[in-house]
């Protein structure tokens, strides 16, 4: 069964929608689906160590794979060493790979 790749592009401090994406990820995982969360553009602002991000912490706590676009991180001056635990920097190719593997891909 193909998984779900949720792409979050919004700044979590600007939009409550980012929290809804996290909730969706957790619900899909609870329903037994493979789930990954890919943060891109201002969505990566949540992964700086020290940032408040209750919803993202819940996602990480459920062992959902959380990836952050390495290009977006560089644009925003967020070094790999500055990422919170449970988040991995990844290239945009990760989205293409999952699509080619038949994952359902949703952009917010």
């Amino acid at each position, binding site marked *: 069964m193909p998984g779900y790749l949720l792409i979050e592009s919004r700044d979590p401090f600007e939009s409550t929608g980012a929290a809804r994406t996290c909730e969706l990820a957790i619900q899909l995982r609870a329903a037994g689906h493979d789930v990954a969360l890919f943060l891109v553009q201002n969505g990566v602002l949540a992964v700086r160590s020290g940032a408040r991000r209750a919803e993202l912490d819940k996602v990480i706590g459920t062992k959902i794979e959380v990836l952050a676009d390495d290009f977006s991180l560089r644009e925003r001056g967020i070094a790999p060493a500055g990422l919170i635990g449970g988040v991995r920097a990844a290239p945009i190719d990760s989205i293409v790979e*999952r699509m080619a593997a038949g994952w359902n891909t949703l*952009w917010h």
Partner: protein
Amino acid sequence: MAKHTLTFVLMDAPFESARTTTAFRLLHAALERGYDVNVFAYEGAVALSFAKQAQHPNAVHGRDVTQEDHPLSKNWIAALIAHARTRGADLNWVNCGLCVDERGVGEAIEGVRRGSPADCWKMAQQSTATLVIPTK
């Protein structure tokens, strides 16, 4: 190994959003892997391929047109179409004709064709996966 076809549906007008940049990065990544790529552009995205986009100088910074070398999305699309060929892939870019007419951007660059919402459905049906990048 079967060749994948991925479809991307774009809405954002040129020069407006980082979503367009990310979309182009995804298209490039897919073509680099030799995947065939469909793009259905609708709403403001039909202007991404408008042939009459033109560069302009930057008087505030004292740069002429050549020095400013303002990026144009139509050139990015043309470059991706050419790049696809070098990777043995196909970039099939279709603009929604309804949206083209509304916006008066009927002149698209070579390699881009006019279509309809039915093309979006057909593309999705024939693809391994489809990603819609909605506007805000």
